[in-house]
């Protein structure tokens, strides 16, 4: 593997990312899966970096999950998206930052479509006007929230309390980055580093002291794939996808997985448990799973936030062994403390699907 070769490609895929005044839109499912992540993003942006991040209370789903699940037609999706843009325009913002990768993919796709087919855009404008009376401007800058964190990775690194380094050995942690499919596979030029060798998460890992692991199945889908998971009969396929990835990364003995998509951390995390239940296999060291984090959680950890504030207790794979490796200072007793009361969560209750 020649890193210069990759750097040459990365240099070709650099995108413009606005540096302040963001209109931030949350993801439908992340708020349920790992709600701490979006909170952490806002905290980092506002408190650590002092940026202006606006959230609109009237923001809805982008309908991307329905679009990719084959139940929402594209024109409907476009009109829903147009409404989000109208909210941004009304709030006086121009830099649109979605939290969700599928949203990001859908926005990119719609903007590209409008670019090539202005008549479609015109039609959508008319429909939006007719339905809601709203009008919108096309965002000046569209960046995924992970792009924004990538942009400020050095600033975050400068403030870091912890590095992605094994405290005992001094070795960098081996980190697998998993990029959501809709990030750049459809429009490689819209992703940092392109589609084949995305750099957006790799850049953070490098900056924060970790070592990026490139493993054969890095391109493969996490297994969520909307229809694959949503229909129970297809779940065997969903879990097989995740398994393929785990088996491919296992020989590299990764310390953690970092992701930038709502579904990926959920499925890479939960399917490890299910595979263990079904086949008794684990993929991490010492019979444990490989902990899976979102990039906001990792950024929060680097900045020294309380892991339980970041919502790490919501993960199926325990984060404690990793925290020990980093030498993190935290109170393990407070893992299940909600409003001062400790609630033990039965892991099975999470999976009674």
């Amino acid at each position: 593997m020649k890193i210069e070769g990759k750097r040459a490609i990365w240099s070709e895929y650099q995108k413009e990312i606005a540096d302040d005044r963001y209109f931030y839109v949350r993801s439908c499912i992340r708020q349920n899966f790992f709600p701490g992540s979006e909170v952490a993003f806002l905290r980092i942006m506002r408190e650590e970096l002092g940026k202006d991040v606006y959230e609109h209370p009237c923001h809805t789903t982008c309908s991307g999950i329905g679009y990719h699940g084959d139940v929402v037609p594209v024109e409907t999706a476009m009109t829903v998206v147009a409404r989000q843009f109208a909210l941004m325009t009304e709030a006086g913002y121009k830099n649109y930052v979605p939290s969700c990768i599928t949203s990001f993919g859908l926005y990119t796709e719609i903007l590209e479509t409008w670019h090539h087919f202005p008549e479609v855009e015109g039609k959508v404008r008319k429909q939006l006007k007719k339905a809601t009376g709203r009008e919108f401007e096309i965002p000046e800058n569209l960046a995924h929230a992970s792009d924004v964190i990538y942009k400020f990775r050095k600033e975050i690194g400068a403030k870091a309390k912890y590095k992605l380094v094994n405290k005992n050995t001094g070795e960098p942690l081996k980190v697998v980055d998993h990029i959501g499919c809709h990030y750049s596979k459809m429009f490689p030029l819209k992703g940092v580093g392109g589609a084949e060798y995305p750099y957006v998460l790799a850049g953070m890992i490098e900056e924060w002291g970790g070592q990026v692991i490139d493993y054969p199945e890095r391109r493969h889908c996490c297994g969520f794939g909307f229809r694959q998971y949503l229909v129970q009969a297809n779940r065997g396929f969903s879990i097989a996808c995740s398994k393929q990835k785990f088996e491919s990364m296992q020989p590299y003995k990764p310390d953690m997985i970092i992701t930038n998509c709502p579904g990926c951390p959920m499925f890479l995390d939960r399917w490890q448990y299910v595979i263990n239940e079904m086949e008794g296999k684990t993929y991490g060291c010492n019979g444990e799973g490989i902990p899976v984090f979102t990039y906001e959680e990792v950024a929060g950890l680097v900045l020294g936030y309380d892991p339980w504030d970041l919502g790490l207790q919501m993960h199926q794979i325990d984060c404690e062994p990793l925290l020990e490796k980093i030498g993190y200072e935290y109170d393990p007793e407070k893992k299940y403390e909600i409003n001062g009361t400790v609630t033990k969560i039965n892991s099975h209750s999470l999976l009674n699907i």
Partner: protein
Amino acid sequence: MNKHIVVIGAGVAGMEAAGQLSNAGFNVSLVEKDENTGGHLNGWYKLFPDRRRSSEVKDYLDKLINKDGIKVISGTTIEKLVNINGIFSLETREGTEMTADAVVVATGFDLFKSSRKEEYGYGIYDNVITSSDLEEMFRKDKIVLVDGRVPENVGIVHCVGSRDEKVGNLYCSKLCCITAVKQAIEIRELLPETRVFCFYMDMRMGGAHYEEIYREAQEEWGINFIRGKVSEVSESIRKKLIIKAEDTLAGRPLKMELDMLVLMAGMEMSEGGRILAKSAGLETGENRFFASADNHFGSNISNIPGVFYAGTCTAPMNITETISHARATVSDVLNYFKNRS
């Protein structure tokens, strides 16, 4: 006659055209961007279909242009070409000028830059090489991996940069299939224990003796042909290349570990040709090669009277076709002057 003709490009087509024009009595200047003449011929060790050394063809061409009527100007790139009342003024990159009564464009082709097919990891994975890199190994009589080991399994990917909408090349480069078969045999000759797999979309064995070599490759050399283009390459922890393709004839995806992957880089309009096309207003086709005045009976004729094409600057060709094409230029040039006088 004493007409002066500038031939741009001293590859196979340029040298052949220059030689034949000189034989026909013209004063010829042969301009070459590199220091040496021969063009891509210098990059190949043995040629298909008869495995003759490329140096033999080179010797023939050298002999052809080594005469009084031909002035070889190497290390020079023509950047501008202007037609002033039937006299052509050519300007080099360095700024010097020359004039000509007619111009033969023989700017040839560039090999497709394989790094553009990012999924193959050329320039990223150690043992992903191109057909031309492999030819260099043949010249040294040694096929080795970066770490010095001998490869046990070698894959060959056809159509890299050809017939590929994603890189904007819709055409077939015509020579890669037969090159792949030739190189596969050469690998087996040098390394009898090595297994070779050709991943092809179609076997385009259109030339004389091509199909026979294909059969020989199967029958005598045991080369495995798998219909399905490699779609992604990654590296295993043991530094082996893992390729994924669909075996379309089995109707199933397939993965395999290889030690070496050879990319059959296709042909593209040369950079020199593109510059010239822009500055002189020469028309190019959808495939970005020069567009001939007529596909059937004017393939050497350009849209500018007095400017002629020879060889692969118009389309992918093998050496035999290139030489024929270059020779045909002479008759078009003769007709041109006959009609003017």
